[in-house]
Every structure is written in C-alpha cells, then in structure tokens.
C-alpha cells in the first residue's frame, strides 16, 4: 500500500500572526513556523497503517524552503520519503491553486492508495482543501474523520462535524482528512531523527508538476484582497470581584445592555 500524507507548515497559533502590509499575505518572516499539529495526527494514522498492513509512506508539503523542516519531522516520525513543492510563484497561492498543485503532486507519485491530511489548517479556517484535492483527483472524500479503518480495499471513516456524526464508506483509492480526536501522535525518536536525515526528499517546482502549462493561466489571481486591517484589540471592560453580589450586578449590566 502507498500512503501519501499532505502536511503544511503554519505559524504557531500560540504566537501572534500578522499579514504583510505589502501584499496582505501571511507574514512568514515574523512568525514561528511549526508543523501543523493536525498533520502529526494524519502522519500517526499513516504510520499505524504502515505497521498494521505494511505500507510506504510519502510526505508531501507545499511551501517555501523552510517547509523542509516540516517534512523532516514527519520523516523522523517514520515516513519513508518526502516530496517538497517549492516555488516562489506559489507565494500567496489561493485555495484553488493550492489544491491543484497538491493534486498534481499526488498524481506524480505512483499507485497511491490513500491520501491522508489534517481536516483543517490553523492558518486558514475553511478546511476545504482536502475535499478539493479529492475532487480534482476523482477520489472519494472521507473528511473530518475521528476514526478510520482500512480493510479489503475499502476505507471506512467516522465523520464528525457540527451536524453530528456519519459513517462513511468508499473503495480505495480515497482521501481521508482526520480530526484532532483520531489519535495521539508519537514523538520522533532520536534514532528516527537521525534516520530522517538520510531519507530521500525530492524537490519539485511548478514546471515539474505542470510541464508546458502557461503559468499566467494556471496562476491567475482569482481573488484580490481590497484591504486588510488588524481588528482593534478588545479593551478590558468592567471588572468586579465577587462578594456574593456578582450575580445581581451582572444581571443589572445585561439588562442595561438589553441582553436579557
């Protein structure tokens, strides 16, 4: 079995994130970049399958030069090889370009049975990219899975969203995105970290992925940011210490604000 894990390097959510004033894209220079936590869970799921049924695990990441760190981390966890899509023309790529590029990278790999991804990245809330990649590859989307079973050429997943839960079933090959509830990811061992340095990582650019494609068409800017303004920080308001009357004072406030 060949499993592909799609991972992304994101700014640490525990730190402040800013948009560049020049082009309204994420200011990566001022951000602490880390492997998105959810990707570690997708990786863990791939490695569990690898241990159970035997599989080759390829990690794919699209991002600037620093994304190699995210790839190495996944290799240190136990993935076999990496594919780094690195091209300055992808700076500020929208979701459609991102999905097309990732789909092209997966197509380049041979005999892929399962594509795994995190269900949403913390730097872009929509969580639509895995479903978009599935659509472009003509694969069933089993997204937002908190449980995954692969057996006899089929994949089954327990999907969990705000609408409730659903059991999904599809034939392989398929794409699965996992939620943070699916597992607890392992830590890379020292041995794993050392081994990761020797594992093969191929670096490709858009010309490799889309030979002969006119990039003005492919990279057409579909959306344009008119302006981006930091929202004013919320100022602290009224503060009281409960002396037994906080409930009464609070209801008075809510009434004054016409909230009750």
């Amino acid at each position, binding site marked *: 079995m060949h499993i592909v894990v799609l991972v992304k390097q994101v700014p640490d*959510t*525990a730190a*402040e994130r800013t*948009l560049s004033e020049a082009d*309204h894209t994420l200011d990566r220079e001022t951000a602490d970049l880390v492997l998105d936590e*959810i990707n570690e869970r997708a990786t863990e799921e791939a490695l569990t399958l690898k241990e159970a049924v035997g599989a080759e695990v390829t990690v794919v990441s699209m991002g600037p030069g620093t994304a190699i760190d995210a790839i190495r981390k996944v290799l240190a966890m136990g993935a076999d090889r990496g594919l780094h899509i690195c091209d300055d023309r992808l700076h500020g790529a*929208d*979701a*459609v370009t991102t999905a*097309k590029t990732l789909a092209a990278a997966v197509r380049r790999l041979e005999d892929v049975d399962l594509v795994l991804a995190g269900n*949403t990245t913390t*730097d*872009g809330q929509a*969580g*639509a990219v895995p*479903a978009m990649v*599935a*659509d*472009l590859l*003509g694969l*069933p*989307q089993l997204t937002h899975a*908190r449980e995954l079973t692969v057996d006899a050429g089929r994949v089954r997943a327990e999907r969990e*969203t*705000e*609408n*409730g*839960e*659903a*059991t*999904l079933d*599809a034939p392989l090959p*398929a794409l699965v995105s996992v939620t943070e*509830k699916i597992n607890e990811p392992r830590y890379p061992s020292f041995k794993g970290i050392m081994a990761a340095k020797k594992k093969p990582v191929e670096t490709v650019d858009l010309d490799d992925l889309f030979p002969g494609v006119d990039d003005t068409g492919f990279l*057409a*800017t*579909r*959306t*344009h*940011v*008119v*302006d*981006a303004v*930091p*929202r004013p*920080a*919320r100022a*602290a*308001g*009224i*503060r009281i*210490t*409960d002396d037994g009357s*906080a*409930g*009464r004072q*609070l209801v008075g*406030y809510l009434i004054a604000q016409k*909230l*009750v």
Partner: protein
Amino acid sequence: MPDVLVLVDHDGERVHKSTYELLTVARRLGDPAAVVVGTPGTAARLREPLARHGATTVHAAESTEADEFLATPAVEALELAVREVSPAAVLVSATTDGNEVAGRLAARLDGGLLTDAVDVDSSGVATQVVFGGSYTVRAQVTHGLPVIALRPGSCEPEERPVEAGERELALPPVDRAASARITARRAALAGDRPELTEATVVVSGGRGVAGADGFKVVEQLADALGGAVGASRAAVDAGYYPHQYQVGQTGKSVSPQLYIALGISGAIQHLAGMQTSKTIVAVNKDPEAPILDVADYAVVGDLFAVAPRLIQEVAVRREAG
C-alpha cells in the same frame, strides 16, 4: 439581473435559517435562485418558505441517492445549475459541509473561492475575518465564478415574498468510485437549544467547570438565557463535553450578541473562536486569566457561586418583567 445561486441547507422538511440569510445577501448581487438537493419531493416541500424569502427560482436536484453520498450530489447540482444559468455568484453556508462543497465547486470550475465571509456588498466585495478575528479582510473575486461561503448568523434574514419558478436539474448517477457513501448518521444532540453558530447567546464552560457534572450549571444558564452551550478545548479534551460544542481555533467560530465564558482561561486558540462576539462576559477564579482582559464584563469569582445566582436573578427579572 443575473441569477445568484444559493445552496439550500435543509433537513428534508425544514429550511435552515442560514439559507434565508444567504437569500437576503444574494439579493444584493442579483436574483436569488435556490438550489435544493435532496430526495424526490424535497423541493416541493421547501418551495413556499424559499419563495417567501425571495427565491425567484427553485432548482430541484432530486434523486433517491442524493442524501446517501457525502457532498458529491450538491457539487454536481451546483455545477449543473452554473452551466445552465451562468450566475453572478454562488453562495453557500460556511458550515463544514458547505465549505467543502464550495471548495470542490471552485476547484472544478476554476472559480474564485472566498470562505468565512461575514458580509458581501452589492459589488461582490466580501468581508472576511481571518486568524481568529485578529484581522478584517475585504476581498473580491477577480477571475472566474465567485463562490462565497458565508458564516451562519452574519445577517438578519428578511422576508421578501416572490413567485418562485421551479426548474429541474437532472443529477447524474453518483460515481461510486469517486464518492463516499453515508452508511449511518447520528444527528447532533442539540435538544431544544439553538445551534451553536446560529445562537444569539452562547454560554461556554472551560476547565474550571471541573467535570461533566459541572456542565449542568453551564446548560442551566444557557437555558435561562435561551442560548446555546459551548465548551473550550480544555473542557472537551478532558471529556467534560462533546467535541461538536468546541469553540475556538480547532472548533467552531461563533459571534453571538452575548458570549458568557465560565471557568475558561482564554487561551489564544479559544479567543480565536469567540472574540468577534458583540458582548463578552467572563467569570473566572483566577484574576490573571487572559479572558478577563477581553471581557466587557469580568467577574473574578467562583463560577459555581456566580452562575446559579445569575440564573436565579434572570428568572426573577423574567417573572417581574
């Protein structure tokens, strides 16, 4: 006026409020045309309320397997409708399902995708809140069909009764090799409470609630205020409350009129999911809790002392008023 396609969110019998919000916003851009994807007979049941909210056309994409497969039938239906009417834009609700459908449609048609919009003006400029509410971005689609996912609760739906024409969209059979079949479904147990992202009041509990039992007081306060219940990631991770109620970076984003945080410290990941709320009230024992610094009304105190008193006071005022 060009058509603006609106994907209808429904449970087979009832149209969700978020759809009326989409129809209201769609009117700014053109003639709202509703696309109903469901089993045969669904569109006929939903036509009247859709027309009452301004849908000039109801496109019926019906098949017996329409609700058996995840997302694919809705993507196919919208793609068919787009080819038929060449709309000015496609609007969907920014739910998990809606975001995925919007993304797939945009990917197929090479359209421009704008997600997490909280407003769209008549020139098609969408306002988005990014990085958990730390930035307001205004963006527009400059190439290809605009596909916009609008957060539920972003506007007040307006009734605008019209005569709705009905058209059929012939859904192709679902490609089983390219689609995930839904073999079982368990609805979220919302009970009588409003949906978290649609509620005007949200009461959330955190680690300070100290157990599943402790959440009873969170629920009671929510019920007293007619609100929804939320939970911080710490509370969900500790098993106090189900994941589907998680508010924050990796859960849901809410912006109700009133958000009450009980025993929540206010990690940046939590603030990301609620700091666009109109009014924030926080109760926390720890005077250093960061949530107290973003609250409009902060109480340093024990939630188990403050919340029951608040419930009592609300009940008294209700009876008096």
